[in-house]
């Protein structure tokens, strides 16, 4: 397969090293970090209005976190050797820390927080269900059915502590993804101390947007009214983080244009040609400026609830596209130009290949499937009054 090249590339540079799967990876971890930070708003920063999204945000974070390492794993030349990252992590490598930050975040933060928050429900359901479900819940109780008021109080306190630890952990999880790119001094498109910060804020933007969309979708599926106070508050936070994110990205851009170092002409050419659609049109105009304007409108003008809902859905979807485009432009864009600054190559995405489009689509859908299972297993909304509460009462009685 001949890859079209313009100008001169070092001969080994013609083929791209990191594919669409590596675009997906920061996108997915970004959603994890962002969703968690939204959850922490309620828990730590006492923004009570977003309470209805709290559990959903946690489950969303977990679903995406479970899938996040899969694109990396599929991309490796030798996936069977990936455990070496735990055996002999190289201290000078940002990537080596991935395994540990990931495990820490998955096990010490998310799983513990969800477990503590759901423990009462788990115990109740382990007694109110039958068959395999009962078995699952029983394993999840770890053999302790103590849901006395005092025990739950302890859970509440410990859960709070875990969330407090979780916030810097979420920052670490996604900040370090930015660092993986930002620390490559060979690549001027990546090499920037702003990279981790930009990644972090874009992660928060995408995480907040996806939880907002999912919450509205779930309300619709369950034929329940949307808590507009909650969605308005989420949208407000989306608006503020988005403005910070956009300012940082523009700062990076303006800094590059003003400094105009040796790589500038090459990168500038790339942005005006190969990356014009994905960077200027999709990422900046459609994916950032437009949603900011849309949500900004709701902040300035008083609109009816239906109109606000429509605007939030439109802005949320645009945001998701914009953030995905941002990851694309960083990962793919950073490999399209030669490190000699003398030429450009082309990214050819396969379809049904190991790193092709089909794999990427499956990996994008997978977290939603996992989320579906999680929601079935651990319903994020208050249980319907009738069925479970009687069992709960029974459980209290038995205790």
């Amino acid at each position, binding site marked *: 397969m001949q890859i079209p090249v313009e100008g001169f590339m070092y001969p080994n540079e013609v083929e791209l090293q990191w594919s669409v799967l590596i675009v997906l990876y920061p996108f997915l971890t970004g959603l994890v970090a962002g969703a968690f930070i939204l959850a922490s708003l309620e828990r730590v920063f006492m923004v009570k209005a977003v309470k209805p999204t709290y559990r959903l945000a946690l489950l969303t974070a977990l679903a995406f976190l479970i899938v996040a390492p899969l694109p990396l794993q599929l991309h490796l030349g030798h996936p069977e050797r990936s455990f070496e990252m735990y055996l002999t992590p190289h*201290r000078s490598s940002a990537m080596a820390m991935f395994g540990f930050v990931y495990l820490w975040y998955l096990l010490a933060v998310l799983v513990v927080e969800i477990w503590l928050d759901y423990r009462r429900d788990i115990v109740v359901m382990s007694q109110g269900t039958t068959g395999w479900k009962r078995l699952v819940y029983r394993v999840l109780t*770890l053999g302790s059915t103590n849901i006395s008021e005092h*025990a739950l109080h*302890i859970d509440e306190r410990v859960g709070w502590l875990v969330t407090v630890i979780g916030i810097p952990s979420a920052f670490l999880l996604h900040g370090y993804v930015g660092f993986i790119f930002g620390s490559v001094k060979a690549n001027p498109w990546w090499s920037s101390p702003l990279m981790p910060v930009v990644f972090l804020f874009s992660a928060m933007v995408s995480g907040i947007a996806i939880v907002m969309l999912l919450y509205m979708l779930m309300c619709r599926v369950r034929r329940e009214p949307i808590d507009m106070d909650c969605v308005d508050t989420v949208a407000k936070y989306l608006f503020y983080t988005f403005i910070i994110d956009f300012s940082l990205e523009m700062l990076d851009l303006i800094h590059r244009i003003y400094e105009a170092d040796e790589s500038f002409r090459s990168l500038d050419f790339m942005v005006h040609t190969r990356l014009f659609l994905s960077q200027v049109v999709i990422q900046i105009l459609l994916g950032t400026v437009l949603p900011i304007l849309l949500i900004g409108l709701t902040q300035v003008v008083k609109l009816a609830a239906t109109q606000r809902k429509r605007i939030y859905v439109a802005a949320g979807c645009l945001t998701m596209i914009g953030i995905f485009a941002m990851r694309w432009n960083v990962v793919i864009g950073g490999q399209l130009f030669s490190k000699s600054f003398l030429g450009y190559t082309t990214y050819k995405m396969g379809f049904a290949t190991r790193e092709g489009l089909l794999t990427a689509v499956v990996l994008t859908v997978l977290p939603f499937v996992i989320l579906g299972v999680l929601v079935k297993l651990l319903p994020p909304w208050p249980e319907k009054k009738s069925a479970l509460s009687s069992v709960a009462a029974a459980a209290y009685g038995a205790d």
Partner: protein
Amino acid sequence: MKAFKDAGHLFRLASVFLVGGVLFLALRGFLVPRSFGQYGHYRGNAIKETAALPISYAGHQVCESCHADILEVKSKGVHKRVACEACHGPLAKHADDPASIQPAKLDTAVLCVRCHEANLAKPKSFPQVVSAEHSGGAPCDTCHQPHSPAIVAVAGASQ
């Protein structure tokens, strides 16, 4: 005492993590390659494995130990620093077993122009020709002897 009892589930969770951690450390001790860390943060044996790869080009010293006559011709001409295998190709197998493995005959019409075809980017002092004009397609060894290419004998005869 009550606090201890009501936090019992937390201790259960902690012990699950503890078991996991101990299992990981045990596995790690078992799985890390023996020579890892011998010289630095890598497998020391990797150096030996790289050093043990097979050789294809024997090196001109080995050629010269047999082909002393060629060496003598070559050392008097401008090609004295050109290694044998630069033209003849990799011949470690021949050096290993000279009787049964013989190098292929070379075609000077193809061989010489690799270096001597004129190109603007070549250093000006390097002898180069436009082969089509220079020899009209005749193989170079019609006139030049590759091991010592200066046409001394012919020049002497014509004088």
